[in-house]
């Protein structure tokens, strides 16, 4: 029994310490995996040989594994640990249900394991940070509901009437992540391991980046702000500087953040009004973000001298500072003219890592060093090692960020350098080889961060090992009295947690609807029949497109010629929304480690692609692209094509019944044509029915649409 009542009307209860403990341990383990994967793929970009000629070791397949493990496994488990640990204390109640806690913990670990298996196998939706296929998406939704019920159950059973600001941030995160995940993951399955999103092209891009940026907002920011508002005062032993400021911080952040997604699509085929809206709201976001940072840093007043000695405070101060810096850099990068330089470059990668490694990572380390000794009822094994960890991690991050800034700005400037109508660096690979030395620095920075992490693991292992079993502490608090409505203002609002939740939902939904709905409706106004090249993919091209997605080509190649002169000079006619109308999912990409491919069709003969996929350096000396020998061994799966076409048809792609029933033979015929073409260009190897043929067919399909005619 976890609670009892005494004569003095106090209820005596214990907290569930096991669930936070499990989540903290999972955080430590998965953090190591995420960082190891990060250092490995960073090294692959410096030394392409590390792709090992193995399909499941290529950068394109491992990069999603790194991002998913860093966000959902490392940062995710830390959120759950911190939320369960702090909410029990702030609400003065035990976690709602032990059974739900178990479902939550083991369910989430199962999701991570499934991600770790499926992503290297190439089972992916091809949407960044939402790569997991539909059965895992459903599992995520179920586990998230378990978490939500557990959390709202705690609120319902609380003994503290008013909800501290940390609880608001948790609440907003839980609600909004559920909304984002469900809306972005709506897809029609083709098989257990393959589905297509219901959105297409520009629609899909907007929904995806509405999700993608708000995953940063409501998974990597708001829960961590909640953790900051709890653990920073605890560690400093002083109340937060301004509670008033925290209220403004919360509401402004929740309302503004949801609108900012389109800044990932500036100068693209997204309607201009949506781009501008995204930019403006991103700039506005600076105010509440810095309000939060200032609130955090001013909480340190009178305690700054302790930062010199205490590693926990070092990590906290650095984390909040990184929050401030990355929320300054984010709005800066959202300004269209800055974005024109920075987008698709490593500057963005540096920005993301200052957030995740600096803000989230340092906040997690501070919490771990603070909580582990308390939960295991012992002392930290070594403060000295924790200080060493801090300086190694800080050096690692700075090397990482500076190298990525330098690489990004260098490459961005080289892409845009023009003399009259001509590009100064017309060969893309020239702009890549120039930044490879910076990739060595980045990999070393990542290695330092990982090495510091290993020291932390050792420190925490020794701390836990030194602990002894202890009786659970018993806490006392009066039960929650009947709620009266004589309280005014925000105090009244906090007492009504259901109303509070509704207001959060409204704040989030307003921005989402205004921004997304017009784009969802806009497809009606496109006229694809007017554009000669905009027609559904042939069955073989569709098979090739799925191979392109499976191999994670989008992690290095964009398919979006921006409206910028130098993009047009390099790649050809700018992209239009109409040309993506049958793209489920869109493949705009977010980084150009290789050139844009939107206009690659017809640019080279089939044999160029053949040899390029077999050994990229044979065609492009200096390239860091992996080799793909498995595409020359593996056969095209013809039998699933009819089903794929049928699913596409259900989503509005105009395939006829005849084209669906002849999908296999049509694909075989087209593959034979590509094979013939390769033979005529001197390819001697037998590649009948091999996947390389489908990929070539798809790449040759990527062309500028013909002129629009107004018939």
């Amino acid at each position: 029994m976890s609670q009892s009542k005494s004569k003095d009307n106090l209820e005596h209860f214990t907290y569930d310490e096991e669930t936070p403990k499990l989540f903290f341990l999972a955080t430590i383990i998965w953090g190591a995996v995420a960082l190891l994967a990060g250092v490995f793929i960073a090294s692959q970009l410096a030394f392409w040989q590390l792709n090992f000629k193995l399909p499941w070791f290529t950068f394109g397949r491992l990069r999603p594994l790194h991002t998913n493990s860093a966000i959902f496994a490392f940062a995710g488990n830390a959120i759950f640990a911190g939320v369960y640990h702090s909410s029990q204390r702030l609400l003065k109640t035990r976690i709602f249900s032990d059974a739900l806690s178990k479902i939550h913990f083991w369910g989430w670990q199962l999701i991570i394991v499934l991600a770790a298996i499926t992503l290297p196998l190439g089972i992916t939706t091809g949407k960044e940070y939402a790569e997991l296929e539909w059965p895992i998406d459903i599992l995520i939704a179920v586990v998230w509901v378990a978490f939500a019920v557990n959390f709202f159950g705690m609120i319902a059973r609380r003994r503290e009437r008013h909800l501290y600001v940390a609880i608001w941030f948790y609440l907003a995160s839980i609600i909004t992540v559920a909304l984002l995940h469900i809306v972005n993951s709506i897809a029609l399955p083709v098989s257990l391991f393959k589905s297509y999103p219901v959105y297409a092209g520009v629609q899909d891009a907007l929904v995806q980046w509405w999700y993608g940026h708000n995953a940063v907002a409501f998974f990597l920011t708001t829960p961590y702000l909640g953790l900051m508002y709890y653990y920073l005062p605890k560690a400093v032993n002083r109340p937060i500087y301004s509670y008033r400021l925290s209220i403004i911080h919360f509401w402004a952040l929740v309302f503004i953040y949801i609108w900012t997604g389109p800044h990932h699509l500036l100068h693209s085929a997204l309607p201009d009004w949506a781009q501008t809206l995204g930019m403006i709201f991103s700039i506005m976001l600076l105010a509440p973000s810095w309000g939060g940072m200032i609130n955090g840093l001013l909480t340190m007043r009178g305690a700054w001298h302790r930062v010199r000695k205490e590693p926990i405070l070092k990590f906290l101060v650095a984390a909040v500072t990184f929050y401030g810096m990355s929320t300054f850099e984010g709005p800066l990068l959202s300004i269209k003219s800055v974005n024109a330089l920075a987008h698709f470059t490593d500057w963005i990668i540096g920005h993301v890592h200052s957030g995740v490694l600096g803000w989230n990572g340092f906040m997690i380390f501070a919490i771990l060093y603070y909580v582990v000794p308390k939960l295991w009822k012992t002392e930290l094994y070594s403060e000295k090692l924790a200080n060493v960890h801090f300086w190694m991690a800080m050096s690692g991050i700075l090397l990482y960020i500076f190298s990525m800034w330098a690489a990004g700005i260098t490459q961005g400037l080289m892409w845009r350098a023009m003399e009259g109508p001509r590009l100064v660096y017309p060969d893309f690979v020239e702009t890549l080889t120039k930044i490879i030395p910076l990739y060595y620095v980045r990999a070393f920075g990542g290695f330092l961060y990982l090495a510091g992490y290993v020291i932390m693991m050792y420190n925490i292992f020794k701390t836990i090992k030194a602990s002894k079993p202890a009786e659970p502490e018993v806490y006392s608090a009066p039960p929650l009295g009947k709620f009266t409505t004589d309280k005014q203002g925000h105090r009244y609002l906090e007492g009504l947690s259901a109303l509070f939740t509704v207001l959060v939902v409204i704040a989030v939904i307003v921005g989402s609807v205004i921004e997304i709905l017009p784009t969802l409706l806009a497809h009606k106004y496109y006229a694809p029949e007017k554009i000669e090249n905009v027609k559904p993919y042939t069955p073989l091209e569709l098979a090739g497109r799925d191979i392109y997605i499976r191999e994670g080509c989008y992690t290095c190649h964009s398919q979006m010629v921006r409206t910028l002169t130098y993009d047009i000079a390099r790649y050809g006619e700018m992209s239009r929304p109409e040309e993506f109308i049958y793209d489920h999912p869109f493949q705009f990409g977010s980084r150009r480690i290789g050139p844009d491919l939107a206009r690659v069709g017809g640019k080279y003969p089939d044999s160029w692609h053949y040899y390029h996929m077999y050994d990229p350096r044979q065609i492009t000396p200096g390239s860091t692209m992996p080799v793909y020998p498995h595409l020359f061994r593996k056969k095209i799966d013809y039998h699933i094509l009819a089903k794929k076409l049928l699913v596409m048809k259900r989503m509005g792609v105009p395939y006829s019944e005849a084209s669906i029933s002849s999908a296999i033979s049509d694909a075989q015929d087209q593959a034979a044509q590509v094979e013939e073409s390769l033979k005529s260009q001197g390819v001697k190897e037998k590649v009948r029915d091999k996947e390389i043929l489908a990929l070539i067919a798809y790449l040759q399909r990527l062309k500028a649409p013909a002129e629009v005619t107004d018939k």
Partner: protein
Amino acid sequence: MKALYLANYKLVFLNCIALVLFFGIFCGALAWIYRKSSKEFYDYMKSLPLED
């Protein structure tokens, strides 16, 4: 019809109303949150994490 309407949208005053509305709500919220009478309550709220 709808496309034509959207292409020729000139109701800029709606944008202005929206701006004034948003800014007004923000200023109102600011005044409400910073009113002096709520100091006691905010002091109580600030102390919550330090209680356990």
